[in-house]
């Protein structure tokens, strides 16, 4: 009898154990090497020093943020288990226990304090600007950190989900100095093995990763293949398993062939013609509106970008949570454009100079806009030059217009609206100015309830769009193509590849 009871008890225990494991986890197989192809090489794997989007593909494998994102880009706990805004200028973060850096040292409050201070220290030459809002960081106890802010902002957790929150091992950084960028040490699911410049970066499974059961892969290799066509050829030939950022011209073919899995979802950024509303002729609202009416956005999206996106209505893309689907934006109407020109005092049109960087897409867009503006009597002279030169004139605000892309970093509307349309915004000084927008953006920034902020942002966007502050063209989709055996790679609207939960089907 007792043995039967014991057996039954054991069986019951086993059953409970089974249900405790999510079904999904059972299907996942451990092991294997995932080969990710990308066109551009990271410049540095020191999160404080890098500058571009494609670096995140590698950074997220090596480092964890204090705060993370879920699939829909809402914030979720990562190295910090919870956080609280104790007053408008103070945040307290509770840290996860038992987390180790790849070099074996412990992750704790002192490490967080050291990391934030490293970014704020001018000697680091960090390109991360978000954390400038931090006045002081204190380690309250071994796993509690308090941030004091210079001005009230509800955005600190978001800032700590970006580069500024990716935690570097203080011991490794002190040992390596400037060489950290080539020998990164974090707490992430994979640890760094080797980096052969311009060829590949190899990572391997970090066995002491804090999130038990993860990662599934033994090894990850990022291969740098600069030519897009060759990149896609390698994927087709099976030399690599995963490519993010598939050229739009190849999407249709890859889908038709059916040999690979193709993922596509709306992204956060937009192609646009940046108008300098600080100087003539674009300091005239009616003139900007004339431009807005002269351009056919859906047609451009379809013929230039193979339909891989959404026609733009304003500066916020659909995955940004404050996106207003009811916002109409501008549709092409040449008669109206001409009326607006007359209203703005230039009934016979005008001539302006548009700077175009060397990226092919900038040129394609600029040429199409040029042709459409011509029908409304507006002459755009294109100055095609090196991107650096464009940048210099844009920073100096001596340009009239430029054809470019805005890469959306984050699903928080502040990350687009504040830098571009607040009169003190980093990319906006001496450009667009509207006191009403300033007031709305400042107010929204200080709040932290999403619903309250959404209303303010939608009102701000309506004003910015009515002002036709810029010429937003279309929001390109985020895309990836992969071998059928690749599972669990998450591709969010921010276009960053996260390999934390990735696995390979046998």
């Amino acid at each position, binding site marked *: 009898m007792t043995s039967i009871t014991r057996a039954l008890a054991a069986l019951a225990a086993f059953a409970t154990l089974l249900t405790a494991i999510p079904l999904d986890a059972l299907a996942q197989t451990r092991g294997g090497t995932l080969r990710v192809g990308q066109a551009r090489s990271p410049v540095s794997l020191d999160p404080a020093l890098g500058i571009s989007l494609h670096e995140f593909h590698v950074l997220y494998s090596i480092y964890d943020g204090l705060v993370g994102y879920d699939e829909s880009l809402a914030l979720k706990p990562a190295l910090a288990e919870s956080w609280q805004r104790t007053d408008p200028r103070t945040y307290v973060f509770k840290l996860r226990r038992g987390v180790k850096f790849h070099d074996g040292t412990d992750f704790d409050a002192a490490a967080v304090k050291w990391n934030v201070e490293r970014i704020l220290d001018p000697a680091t030459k960090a390109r991360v600007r978000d954390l400038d809002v931090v006045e002081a960081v204190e380690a309250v106890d071994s796993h509690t950190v308090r941030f004091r802010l210079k001005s009230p902002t509800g955005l600190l957790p978001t800032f700590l989900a970006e580069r500024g929150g990716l935690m570097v091992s203080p011991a490794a950084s002190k040992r390596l100095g400037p060489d950290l960028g080539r020998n990164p040490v974090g707490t992430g699911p994979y640890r760094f093995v080797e980096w052969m410049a311009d060829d590949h970066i190899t990572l391997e499974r970090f066995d002491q990763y804090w999130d038990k059961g993860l990662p599934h892969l033994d090894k990850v290799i990022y291969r740098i293949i600069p030519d897009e066509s060759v990149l896609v*050829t390698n994927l087709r030939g099976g030399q690599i398993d995963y490519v993010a950022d598939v050229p739009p011209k190849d999407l249709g073919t890859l889908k038709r062939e059916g040999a690979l899995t193709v993922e596509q979802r709306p992204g956060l950024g937009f192609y646009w013609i940046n108008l300098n509303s600080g100087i003539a002729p674009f300091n005239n609202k009616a003139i900007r509106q004339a431009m807005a009416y002269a351009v056919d956005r859906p047609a451009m999206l379809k013929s230039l970008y193979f339909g891989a996106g959404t026609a733009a209505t304003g500066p916020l893309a659909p995955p940004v949570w404050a996106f207003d689907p009811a916002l109409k934006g501008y549709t092409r109407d040449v008669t109206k454009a001409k009326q607006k020109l007359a209203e703005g005092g230039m009934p016979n049109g005008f001539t302006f100079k548009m700077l175009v960087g060397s990226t092919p897409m900038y040129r394609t867009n600029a040429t199409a806009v040029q042709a459409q503006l011509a029908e409304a009597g507006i002459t755009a002279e294109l100055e095609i030059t090196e991107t650096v030169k464009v940048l210099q004139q844009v920073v100096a605000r001596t340009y009239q217009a430029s054809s470019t892309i805005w890469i959306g970093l984050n699903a928080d509307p502040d990350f687009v609206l504040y830098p571009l349309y607040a009169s003190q915004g980093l990319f906006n000084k001496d450009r667009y100015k509207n006191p009403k927008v300033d007031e709305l953006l400042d107010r929204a920034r200080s709040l932290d309830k999403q619903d309250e902020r959404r209303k303010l942002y939608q009102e701000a966007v309506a004003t910015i769009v009515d002002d036709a502050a810029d010429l937003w063209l279309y929001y390109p989709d985020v895309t990836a193509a992969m071998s059928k055996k690749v599972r669990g790679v998450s591709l969010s609207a921010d276009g960053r590849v996260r390999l934390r939960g990735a696995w390979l089907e046998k």
Partner: protein
Amino acid sequence: MARSIAARLVLTVPVLLLVSLLVFSLLLLIPGDPALVILGPDASPVEVRRLSRELGTDRPIVVQYAAWLGRALAGDLGRSPRTGQPVVAAVGERLPPTVELAVLGMVLAIAGGGALGLAAGWRPGSLIDRATAWLATLGIAIPTFLLAILLILGLSLRAGLLPPSGYVPWRESVAGNLRAMVLPAMTVAATMAAVIARVVRSSVLETRGELYVVTARAKGLSEAAIYLRHVLRNALVPILAVTGLQVGRLMGGMVITETMFAIPGIGRLAVDSVLARDFLTVQGVVLVMALWVLLANLLVDALNLVVDPRITRV
């Protein structure tokens, strides 16, 4: 002979100095403040000024050059402000693939172009001569990137014979390294082989009519002996001259081949660094390339001494 080569080696030092000065002045003509490029558009003017001071780009060009030269003479080419990596290390790790590609490409070009040229020149008007003329025209006319794509599509994707791109270091696998290098080497070799084929053909044609060849034939020497002893040896001089000239051009074309085949070489480093206004790295790359061209030409001249005894000094 050894003395004249030694003299040439000594001469490379002033040439390199001149090259570095030239590059330095050219770089300063390129618009775009390095500090601004490094910091990005969101940097405050104060930060840009601070970084300019750190980089030294706010000082007069003569002072900048002197400071750079002083450190360079001590073997320190500086640290890239873009990647934080020492320039010597950055150039050092990208040099082997480029040198290997250049050498393989040259060997292939000399062997292929030389053989075609010799055959075409020996039987002018024949099928092989006409085919060589076509191939040479094609080789000179076809853009590198197109040839690269065609080779990848044909020999790799369709036929599955070779990997489409990538680089395998020697220490990992010698066979893998060579397999990965075949297509890039063919791409690099195409134009050079075409030029060599044409030069060799006309040189052979000319030599065939020379009196000493007629004499040799009259003496009853076999055609093979005439060809090997008299024609081939004389045809080598123009081959060497052309090869020497092509070495510099080869380095220029390397950027595209490296990009198409994803080879981590020095050409890509040069272009990336120019675009990012990473002047220290550009200087390092140019110095190494200049040294390579100088040494290659010196080698060619030395080989000329061996091939043509009439030449006594380089």
